[in-house]
């Protein structure tokens, strides 16, 4: 079985006939002729950013998905059907995301697609999924717009609407801040979190002292930081990705800025600590309540297997990809390998104990996942616990 998996993964692209031949031949040669091995391959699509500046997010997710698919196949597949993932590169561009989706739907005729990573590419692919009644399951998009993108659209990454509010509550009531500056990345992700945070924080009587932004891929954030500090905030909120945030924090350190930094889910990545080092120290961020440092057995097994297979620590993108694959396998197992079957059983999934958090879906296909606050202490991601405050008690 193992050798076939390796072969399948290397060559994502093949026709069903070829796949069947390879299966038959390899089993013939290896002398292993379990009856279930002759069942059709379940092919599912994946569209994500696999090249260009932001390829690392998609690649990480891909590693998680591949690991999950390998585990599923090692345990005999889904009802005896091996799974195969067909990847299409969205290049992180919405237009390319739509093209990739179209390809997967009309050429490969898959009933379910995992993707995309960025909200903009998922939103571009969503109408095509809806029109063709194909399930689209995003392991990385956070825009509040995805909640209402359609009946066939699911995700296991929490919505900005949820995350932004939690951080606003914490800043206002947990820390007692009245003035917060925002330095955000200028795309759907950054704008979404900035808006949600602002609305909530100001409704609670806080004031957003300034909003500064930067482009994805920028490397110099000094002017933004200086302007944020000039507005005299109690804290600076940083919605963005670790690529830029790592450099931003280093520059803040060099400019001797000692204001408290607050950040978001995508902050927690091993790469963050590697790139920013001590500059990441003390940043408080929100994250799904299960994390890579958890000692619970599911997470431990995942981290061990992932590190062994790829020689690196998994980040949150990998964890979400891994969960997405396993959740879909569960849905296919229960509802059958059709878009309708998968969709119906996804809506019924409750409290799935994933490595990216306890996962349920609401009636919009949006994930419900407990969230907590963490921080960096002594070069490690740690739970944030200040005994004197209870972060989520605005009434208290």
């Amino acid at each position, binding site marked *: 079985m193992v050798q076939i998996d390796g072969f399948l993964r290397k060559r994502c692209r093949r026709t069903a006939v070829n796949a069947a031949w390879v299966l038959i031949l390899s089993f013939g040669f290896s002398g292993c002729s379990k009856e279930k091995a002759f069942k059709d391959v379940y092919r599912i699509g994946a569209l994500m950013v696999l*090249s*260009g*500046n*932001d*390829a*690392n997010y998609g*690649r990480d997710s891909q590693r998680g998905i591949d690991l999950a698919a390998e585990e599923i196949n090692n345990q005999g597949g889904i009802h005896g059907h091996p799974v195969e993932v067909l990847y299409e590169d969205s290049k992180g561009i919405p237009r390319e995301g739509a093209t990739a989706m179209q390809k997967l739907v009309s050429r490969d005729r898959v009933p379910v697609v995992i993707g995309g990573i960025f909200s903009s590419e998922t939103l571009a692919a969503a109408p095509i999924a809806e029109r063709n009644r194909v399930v689209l399951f995003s392991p990385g998009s956070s825009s509040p717009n995805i909640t209402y993108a359609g009946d066939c659209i699911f995700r296991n990454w929490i919505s900005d609407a949820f995350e932004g509010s939690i951080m606003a509550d914490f800043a206002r009531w947990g820390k007692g801040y009245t003035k917060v500056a925002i330095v955000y990345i*200028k795309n759907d992700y950054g704008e979404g979190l900035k808006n949600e945070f602002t609305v909530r924080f100001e409704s609670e009587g806080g004031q957003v002292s300034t909003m*500064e*932004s*930067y*482009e994805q*891929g*920028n*490397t*110099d954030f*000094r*002017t*933004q930081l*200086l*302007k944020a500090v000039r507005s005299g905030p109690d804290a600076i909120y940083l919605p963005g990705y670790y*690529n830029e945030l*790592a*450099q931003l924090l280093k520059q803040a*350190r*060099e*400019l*001797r800025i000692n204001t408290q930094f607050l950040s978001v889910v995508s902050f927690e990545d091993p*790469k963050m*600590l*590697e*790139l*920013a*080092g*001590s*500059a990441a120290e003390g940043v408080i961020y929100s994250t799904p309540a299960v994390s890579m440092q958890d000692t619970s057995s599911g997470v431990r097994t995942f981290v061990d297997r992932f590190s062994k297979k790829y020689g690196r620590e998994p980040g949150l993108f990998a964890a979400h990809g891994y969960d997405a694959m396993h959740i879909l396998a569960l849905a296919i197992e229960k509802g059958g390998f059709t878009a309708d079957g998968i969709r119906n059983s996804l809506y019924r999934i409750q409290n799935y104990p994933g490595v990216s958090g306890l996962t349920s879906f609401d009636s919009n296909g949006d994930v419900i996942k407990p969230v907590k606050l963490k921080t960096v202490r002594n070069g490690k991601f740690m739970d944030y616990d200040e005994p004197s405050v209870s972060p989520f008690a605005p009434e208290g």
Partner: protein
Amino acid sequence: MAQLLVNGLIAGGIYALIAIGYTMVYGVLHFINFAHGEIVTAGAFFFYSLHVLWGWNPVFSFFLSVLLCGGLGCLIERGAYRPLRYASRISSLVTAIGVSVILQNGLGAIFGFDPKSISGSGEAVVYSIRNAFITRPQVAVLASAGGLLAGLFVFLKWTYIGTLIRATGDDLSAAVSTGIPVDRTVSVTFFVGSLLAGTAGILVGTLQDIQPTMGLPFGIKAFTAAVVGGIGSVPGAVIGGLFIGMAENLGAWIFPTGYKDAFAFLVLILFMLFRPRGILGKSALHNG
């Protein structure tokens, strides 16, 4: 305010180093080498491989990387541009874009697209002047940019080969007919331009994380700087670089920061409208 000037000066110094490559090549061949930004990336990655991955001495790694960049520049010229020297200018332009794509994705294939760090995660030593902070690598950037620029002026003004470069730039066909070894002169031009771009890449790499795609934005800004300064003019490239670096940082200070990248191009548009030949450019008559 002092901090803004320091930040602008550093950004400008780097743009200036890269802009010189554009302007020198344009000065000689009247052609924009769009793969120039990728030499910047290559410089950073050569240094990353030698110093960080293989643990070689930083000074030795620096010089070797810079020379490798120079060599890479010559190689690109020899392989991709020389066969097209007398073809239509559009052909070389498209070839340059192709070379840029190949280099960028080649580096991506070798190193992966995720960001790497040359300086490590350690904290840089910070000096303060009045109320501005400047890190030791930033001081190094300013010092080496200044030193290199001075060296370049001496080279172009008072050496034999420098004279040849200027002569070829003045008139390519006249240079050929007076017996100037044009091929060799062009190679030297690419070598020197790439040398400076490679240096800029390493300097940039000490200030920020490096990625195979990092060269493109620097390339575009530096190209803008070269045009604003007056394309073909080396002092113009330096002034243009500093000008763009300052304009970006001051502009973002006064207006919303989200438009920071736009200021360089706003400056470019204003120059195109009111002074198309740039600050120190020769008059449009010369553009053959």
